[in-house]
C-alpha cells in the first residue's frame, strides 16, 4: 500500500500525466500533444489539478483566511483529487480514451512532503489512484520558472510561494526556496516512480517532437475512433 500508485489500471484507455513546477511549460505541451493525438483520430480527454467543484471554494476560502494546516491542506486536495478521479479520470479511462492529466497524485506527493507531511501517509491516502502509463516530468531550473512567473506578471500566491512555511518574509525569495524544495521532491519521485524526464529548457517545438516520438510505440496498437467504429 505504501508504494502506491504502483497498481496498473487495467482499463482499455491510457493515462498520460504531465508533472513539473509551475512555469515549466507542461500545460502548453499537454495542449499541443492533445491536438496531435486528436488529429491522429484518437479520443482524448483533458483534466487539470484542482478542477473539481466540490471543495475548490473551501480551499480558496481556507487559503485566504489562513485556516489550513499542512494536514488539512493535504487532505482537502486529496478530497478534490478523489472526486476528480471518480468523475473525470476513471470514466474516460474505462471507455478507452487517452486521458491527459495536467498534474496527478505526484503533485500532492511533492507538495505535501515539502510541507512536512509524512510521505508514506500521503501515499496511502492516494492509493486509490493507479499508476499512469506515462509520467512526463518537465524539469527546469527554479530560476527560470521564477523569471517566467515574473515576466508573465501573474501574481505569486501565498501558498504557491510556501509562505505558510515561514521560509522567508520576502515573497519571491520564499517562492524560490519552496520551489527548490518541490524540485528536490520531484527529483526523488522521478527515480522511485520511473518518470520520463523532459529537459524543459529547450524550445517548445523540440520538446513537443520528443513527446510525440516517445508515445509513438504506445500508440501503434492503440485504436483510433475510425477503427473502433469499423470493428464495432
Amino acid at each position, binding site marked *: 500500500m505504501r508504494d502506491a500508485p504502483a497498481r496498473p489500471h487495467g482499463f482499455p484507455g491510457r493515462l498520460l500525466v504531465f508533472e513539473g513546477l509551475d512555469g515549466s511549460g507542461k500545460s502548453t505541451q499537454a495542449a499541443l500533444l492533445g491536438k496531435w493525438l486528436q488529429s491522429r483520430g484518437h479520443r482524448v480527454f483533458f483534466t487539470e489539478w484542482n478542477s473539481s467543484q466540490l471543495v475548490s471554494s473551501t480551499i480558496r476560502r481556507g487559503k485566504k483566511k489562513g485556516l489550513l494546516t499542512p494536514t488539512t491542506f493535504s487532505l*482537502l486536495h*486529496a478530497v478534490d483529487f478523489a472526486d476528480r*478521479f471518480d468523475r473525470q479520470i476513471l470514466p474516460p479511462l474505462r471507455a478507452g480514451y487517452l486521458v491527459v492529466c495536467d498534474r496527478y497524485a505526484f503533485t500532492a506527493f511533492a507538495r505535501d512532503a515539502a510541507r512536512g507531511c509524512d510521505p508514506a501517509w500521503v501515499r496511502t491516502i492516494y492509493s486509490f489512484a493507479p499508476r499512469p502509463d506515462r509520467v512526463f516530468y518537465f524539469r527546469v531550473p527554479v530560476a527560470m520558472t521564477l523569471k517566467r512567473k515574473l515576466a508573465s506578471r501573474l501574481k505569486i500566491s501565498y501558498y504557491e510561494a510556501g509562505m505558510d512555511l515561514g521560509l522567508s518574509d520576502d515573497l519571491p525569495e520564499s517562492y524560490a526556496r519552496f520551489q527548490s524544495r518541490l524540485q528536490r521532491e520531484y527529483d526523488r519521485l522521478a527515480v522511485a516512480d520511473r518518470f520520463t524526464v523532459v529537459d524543459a529548457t529547450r524550445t517548445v517545438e523540440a520538446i513537443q517532437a520528443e513527446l510525440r516520438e516517445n508515445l509513438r510505440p504506445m500508440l501503434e496498437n492503440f485504436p483510433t475512433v475510425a477503427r473502433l467504429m469499423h470493428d464495432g
Partner: protein
Amino acid sequence: MMGRTYGTRLPGMPTEPLPGKLVVIEGADGSGRTTEVALLKTHLEVEGHAVVDTGLRRSDLVSAEIDRAKQGHTLGATTLALLYAVDFADQLENKIIPALSAGSTVLADRYIYTLMARAIARGASREWARELYGFALRPDLVVFLEARPEILLHRSISKYGSLDYWESGMDLSLSRDLFESFFLYQDRLSREFDWMAGEYGFRRVDANRTIEQVHADVQRLVAPLYGHERPGARSASRPRRRRLTPPSPRAASE
C-alpha cells in the same frame, strides 16, 4: 495523556505529553451515546475537571460541503471518507489538541472509529482506513456502548419517527427496503466495531440497559483516569488515589 498517535505524526504537533485526558464514547445511533456524553460531562465537571466536548462534523472548514454532499448523494466512497477526514483533522488540530494542552478533558461523542466503520462499510479497506487515521491521538479511554439492533431500531424510530436514510445505509443500495437496509447496514458496522474493539482496546458497556445502569458503568471506567487528581475526593476514604501513577491498565502498559 501521552500524546501518541496510531501511526504518523502531524507536522507541528507537540511532542511532549499533553496534560489533559481524551475520553471517547462510541456507539451506534440509538445506543444512548449522546445522553451518556451529557451525563458524563456533568459528572466530570462536578468532580472539578474542565471538560470540552466534541463530536463529528462540527468544524467550520468543510461541514457545509458534507451537508451538500449528503443532500446530493453523489460522492464516491473515497471522496466522502476523505472529506470526513479533513473535518476530523481540523477538529483535532484546532480544538482537541489545544484543549488537551490546556489540561482539559476532551469528551468526544464518537471519534475516528465511527468514521472508519462507515468508510469500510462503503468499500474502503481496513488497512487504508487505519492508515488514513494514523494521525489521530490515542485516547486515554474508549467506551463502546453496545446495543442489540432491535433496541437501536426501537430508539431510532421513537426519536425520529422513522429510520434515518444514512444510519440505514440506504446509499449503499443493500436493499430498496429501508427496514431491511437498516439491519444489513448495522450488521456491517457492528462487524467493524467488533474488529476495532480488539484492535484499539475498547471498553465495552452493555447499552441494552437503563440510562442509570450504563452511566454507573461508565463512571467506574472513567474514575481511574484521574486517580489522585480529584479536587472533590475525600482522601481518607480513598487512600489508593494518592498514588502518583494513575492505576489504569493503559497507563501501565505504556
